[in-house]
C-alpha cells in the first residue's frame, strides 16, 4: 500500500544542464506532500516545464534524483506512470483524429489499461471536461481551450494517485478556467495529489494548499500557501495630501521602511500600536483621507522572491 503519508513527488539535487551549457534546473529539492494541491510557480523560462519533464522521465537529469510515488524515476516508469496523470507543455494530439480517438490511442499505450472499459472511460473523461458534444469532432477543429480540456481528459482516463499538470488552465476562457479549477478541487477532495505548474498567482491562491517558487532554475521557496501569505507583513498605509508631514510623524513614532507615493505614505509598523497613530497624525495637522493596514498580495511576494514580474527570465 502506498500510504498517504509518503510524499508522491520527491527530488534531490535535481539538475538539468542543456547541451549548450545552460542550466535550466539547478539542484532543486522538491517535496510534494500527499493529498496536497501543489502550485509550482515561476516566471516563463524559470525551469518549470524542464522540471516536469524530468519528473515524468521524458528527459534525463544531468544530476540528482526523482522519486515518484515512492519509486525511482525513470527506472520504474512503467510501474509508476500508469498511476500518474500528466499534461506536459500544452495539449498535443493527432489533428486528423477525433477527440475520442485520441483518448483511445493514449489509453491503449498504457498496457495496464483495460481495453474492455476503454470506450466507457473515454466517455466519462470527456464528460468531466465538458467535451461530450465534441467527442467525434476532429481535433483539428478544436479551439485551444477545447484541446486543453482534452489534454486534461487524457489525465482523467484512469483513477490516478497523482496528477502532474503543466499550466492546465492555459488558453481557457474565464468560464473554462473556473470549471477546471473546480475539477481540480474535486479531484483533490477525492485524495488525488495534484502538482500543477502555473504562472497565475490567482490560481495558487484559489486552489493550492502548497506552493513552490522557481526563479532562474532555482527553487527559491517551498511552503504551504498559508505560510507564504502569513509571511507577508501587512504595511501601514496613510492616504493624505500632507505627505512630508505624515512621513515625519510616522518616522518619529518608530515606523520603518517608509515610502512615499503620489498620494500615500507607507511603512512597516512592526508590532507598534497603530491605533494610536491616527491620533498622532491628526495632532500633527495631517489631513487623513485613508488609514489602515494593507496585506500585500501573493503577487508582490512572488515579485519579492523572484526579483521580477512575469517577464521572461534570461
Amino acid at each position, binding site marked *: *500500500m*502506498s500510504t*498517504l503519508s509518503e510524499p508522491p513527488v520527491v527530488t534531490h539535487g535535481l539538475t538539468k544542464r542543456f547541451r549548450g551549457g545552460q542550466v535550466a534546473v539547478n539542484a532543486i529539492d522538491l517535496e510534494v506532500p500527499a493529498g496536497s494541491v501543489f502550485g509550482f510557480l515561476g516566471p516563463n523560462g524559470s525551469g518549470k516545464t524542464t522540471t516536469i*519533464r524530468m519528473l*515524468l*522521465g*521524458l*528527459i*534525463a537529469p544531468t544530476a540528482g534524483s526523482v522519486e515518484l510515488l515512492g519509486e525511482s524515476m525513470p527506472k520504474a*516508469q*512503467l510501474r509508476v*506512470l*500508469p*498511476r*500518474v496523470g*500528466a499534461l*506536459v*507543455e*500544452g495539449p*498535443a*494530439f*493527432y*489533428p*486528423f*483524429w477525433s477527440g475520442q480517438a485520441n483518448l*483511445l*490511442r*493514449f*489509453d*491503449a*499505450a*498504457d*498496457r*495496464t*489499461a*483495460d*481495453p474492455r472499459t476503454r470506450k466507457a472511460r473515454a466517455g466519462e473523461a470527456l464528460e*468531466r471536461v465538458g467535451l461530450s458534444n465534441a467527442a467525434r469532432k476532429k481535433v483539428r477543429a478544436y479551439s485551444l481551450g477545447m484541446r486543453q480540456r482534452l489534454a486534461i481528459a*487524457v489525465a482523467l482516463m*484512469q*483513477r490516478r*494517485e497523482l496528477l502532474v499538470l503543466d499550466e492546465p488552465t492555459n488558453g481557457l476562457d474565464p468560464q473554462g478556467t473556473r470549471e477546471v479549477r473546480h475539477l481540480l478541487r*474535486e*479531484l483533490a*477532495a*477525492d*485524495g*488525488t495529489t495534484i502538482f500543477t505548474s502555473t504562472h497565475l498567482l490567482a490560481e495558487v491562491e484559489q486552489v493550492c494548499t502548497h506552493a513552490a517558487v522557481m526563479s532562474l532554475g532555482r527553487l527559491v521557496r517551498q511552503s504551504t500557501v498559508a505560510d507564504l501569505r502569513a509571511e507577508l507583513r501587512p504595511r501601514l498605509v496613510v492616504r493624505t495630501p500632507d505627505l512630508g508631514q505624515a512621513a515625519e510623524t510616522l518616522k518619529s513614532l518608530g515606523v520603518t521602511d517608509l515610502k512615499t507615493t503620489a498620494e500615500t505614505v507607507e511603512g512597516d509598523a512592526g508590532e507598534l500600536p497603530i491605533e494610536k497613530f491616527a491620533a498622532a497624525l491628526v495632532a500633527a495637522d495631517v489631513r487623513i483621507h485613508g488609514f489602515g493596514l494593507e496585506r500585500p498580495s501573493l503577487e508582490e511576494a512572488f515579485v519579492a522572491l523572484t526579483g521580477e514580474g512575469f517577464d521572461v527570465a534570461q
Partner: protein
Amino acid sequence: MSPSEAVTVGPRLRTKRYPLALFRSELHLVFGRARSWALLGVLAAVPILIGSAIRFAGGGGDAEGFLGQVAGNGFFLIVASLALSLPFFLPTAVTVMSGESLAGEASLGTFRNLLTAPAGRSRLLAAKMVSLALFCLAATMTIWISGLIVGFVLFPVGDVLLLSGTTVSLGDGLLRALGIAVLIAASLLGLAGIGLFVSSLTSTPLAAMAATFGTFVVLGILSAIPQIDVIHPWLLMYGWLSFADLMRDPPYWDAIGRNLLLQAGYLAVFYAAAWARITSRDING
C-alpha cells in the same frame, strides 16, 4: 464527479497486462489515415497504368521480360507491376511512412503523451517497426490484388510459362506471385529500418523522409558504379531482383536467401541504432 463516487486512492489492482493494445493502435494510426490510403492508391494505380498502356496502345512494342508477356497472359501484369514498382514507387511509399513514424510523433508532441501513458520507449519502437513491416506487406499486396483484377479484366489469362521454360497452372502462378509480393515486402525492410533510424533523430518528418530517400538514392548510385563492384553485394538493393528466381521450377533459393539475410542485417543494425537513440533521447518536443 459527486462525492459519493469518491473512492479512496490507493494502489489499484490493475495487474492484467495488455501489451498488444499499443500495436493495434499503431496499425490504426498507419492504416486509419487518408495519407496511407493515398499511397496505397498510387500503388494500386500502377497495374492500371501499365495494363491500359499495353491494352490500348496496341501490342506493337517489343517489350521483354514479364512486361512482354502481359498482352498474352494477364497474370504477368501482377509480376510486371511488382517489378516496376520496386525501383521507385515502393521505396517512396516506405520512405514516407518510415520517415513519419517517430518524427511525426515528435513534431505533433504526441510523443510525450505516449511516453507518459506510459508506452515504454522500446515497446513503442517495436510497435512502429511492426506497423512499418505490415505497411510494406500491404503495399505489395495492393499491387498484387490490383494487378490480378486489372490483368483478368483486360487480358486473356491462362497457364503460366516460367523462366525455366516449364508451364505451371494459373493457381500455381498466382501463389508464386503472392510469394513475390511477400519477398518484395521483405526487400523493403532494410530501407524501412534506415527510415526508422533517421526518424528517431529529428522532430521534422519531412527532413526524415528527405534524408531517408537521399540515402536510398546514394545507395542506388553506388550500385550503378562498376568500379566499386566489390562493395555491391553489401548494398541494400543488390538482391532486390532475386524475386524473379521464384518464377523458375524449381525456384533458385540462393539469391533469395542472400537478399533476405542482407535485409535482416540492415534492419538489425539500424533498428539497434534507433533503439539506442530513442531510449536515451530527451523528449523536449
